[in-house]
């Protein structure tokens, strides 16, 4: 680790992943099958998030790659986007995530969340 301040890109990556992991239906970050969804700072690998600058205007494309519980995934991803945007706004990075892509790479079937709206077995 170094004492140098993190770049806005790295700060946004950490903030986005933490915001996602704080959701009760998100189990963990995952680098994905190709192992490319990572942010590495001074040799420290943070798996499950990558942030790429878009042009020179200070905006970034955020990708979160996650393992979640078995819950309706579309509403979950919208909720995660909202959480990331709120967290960015609070930490003065508002407007910097221009797009937030959510990749669900796996689900934990042994931990079906109560919020899952599943029908009873036939």
């Amino acid at each position, binding site marked *: 680790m170094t004492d140098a301040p993190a770049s806005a890109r790295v700060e946004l990556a950490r903030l986005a992943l933490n915001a996602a992991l704080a959701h009760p239906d998100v189990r963990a970050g995952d680098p994905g099958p190709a192992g490319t969804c990572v942010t590495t700072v001074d040799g420290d690998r943070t798996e499950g998030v990558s942030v790429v600058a878009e042009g020179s205007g200070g905006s970034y494309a955020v990708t979160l790659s996650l393992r979640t519980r078995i819950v309706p995934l*579309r509403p979950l991803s919208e909720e995660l986007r909202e959480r990331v945007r709120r967290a960015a706004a609070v930490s003065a990075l508002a407007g910097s995530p221009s797009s*937030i892509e959510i990749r669900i*790479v796996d*689900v934990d*079937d042994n931990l079906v969340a109560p919020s899952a709206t599943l029908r009873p077995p036939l």
Partner: protein
Amino acid sequence: MAAESTSTSMTKPDVDDASLESDGGRTEIADAVVTKIAGIAAREVGGVHQLGGGATRRIGSVTQAVGIGDERTQGVSVEVGEKQAAVDLVVVVEYGESIPRMAEAIRATVSKRIADITGLEVTEVNISVNDLHFAGDDQPVPPQEPRVE
């Protein structure tokens, strides 16, 4: 035993919008997610004994014993696009069950679960009935009495 295949195109599920793209960005669902949901959903249907062909089940029992296999995904293959998914299942059914009735129940359950959880439209669920399971199949064979003393 020869496998019996059943296939029907699915009607569009009751989802408000099949698109996984919104103003804020896109959502991508990995094949592994759809595979797992399809495997779990198929097993919910009464009369499904197991998923997978004979070789798949034998290999699966070895890989699961060493902790690298997952029973819930064996016998399931999927094709996942941006808005749609297609599922192929290989199942072993309990002897005495109506295969057409079960095939419809599996189709309905699998496509409903996938649509509810992922928002993907399921275009087809192809089911191959690979074997029948008899109630006594899992009983251990009693040792035979020697024929001579």
